[in-house]
């Protein structure tokens, strides 16, 4: 598959641990944020989103936290599984895109050991 993991920050965890992946976004006026998962050889897949009027949102085994003061986003994965191994990207909707475009961050590779 396509190698997108070269030179990425890497987080290595054991199966069953909780994982926290961090992202610093660039535009303080962005009002919508999204986390994507990209497995080797595939395009990104949506995980969870959050609007700027929220500071926390929970999904199935995942939680996104938003700190607008320091322009920081995090993705928490509970009970990490080997199938969670992938590259994780945050993305923001910057104005004045009119909700047409996304700006992606650099990504973090998550490696889960059995």
């Amino acid at each position, binding site marked *: 598959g*396509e190698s997108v993991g070269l030179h990425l920050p890497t987080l290595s965890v054991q199966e069953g641990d909780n994982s926290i992946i961090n992202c610093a976004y660039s535009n303080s006026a962005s009002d919508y944020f*999204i986390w994507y998962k990209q497995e080797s050889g595939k395009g990104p897949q949506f995980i969870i989103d959050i609007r700027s009027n929220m500071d926390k949102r929970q999904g199935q085994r995942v939680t996104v936290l938003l700190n607008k003061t320091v322009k920081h986003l995090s993705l928490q994965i509970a009970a990490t599984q080997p199938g969670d191994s992938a590259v994780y990207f945050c993305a923001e909707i910057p104005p004045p895109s009119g909700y047409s475009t996304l700006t992606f961050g650099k990504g973090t590779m998550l490696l889960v050991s059995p």
Partner: protein
Amino acid sequence: NAGVTQTPKFRILKIGQSMTLQCAQDMNHNYMYWYRQDPGMGLKLIYYSVGAGITDKGEVPNGYNVSRSTTEDFPLRLELAAPSQTSVYFCASRPTTDRIYEQYFGPGTRLTVT
């Protein structure tokens, strides 16, 4: 539905050659996107389209051209290939909803320019 399809999967070009990367979707989505992904980096938007006959530049449009004559197809043209265009190219589409995160990605085209 086949979803978003891209051809070719791999291609090697010589400097100065031209080629067209094909992208098609069968979901009747209005929005379509072209991204490039360099090793260790997030996706950067090249061009996007909000409907047939309408295209707009993204973050990194130089060296590329697009057209959108039908809802289904959104080809990306490289006129004079340069080594800096070595990358993995992803096409994506989404329906006309507020859920901008709902982008469906193709499998990617790995392009090498030597």
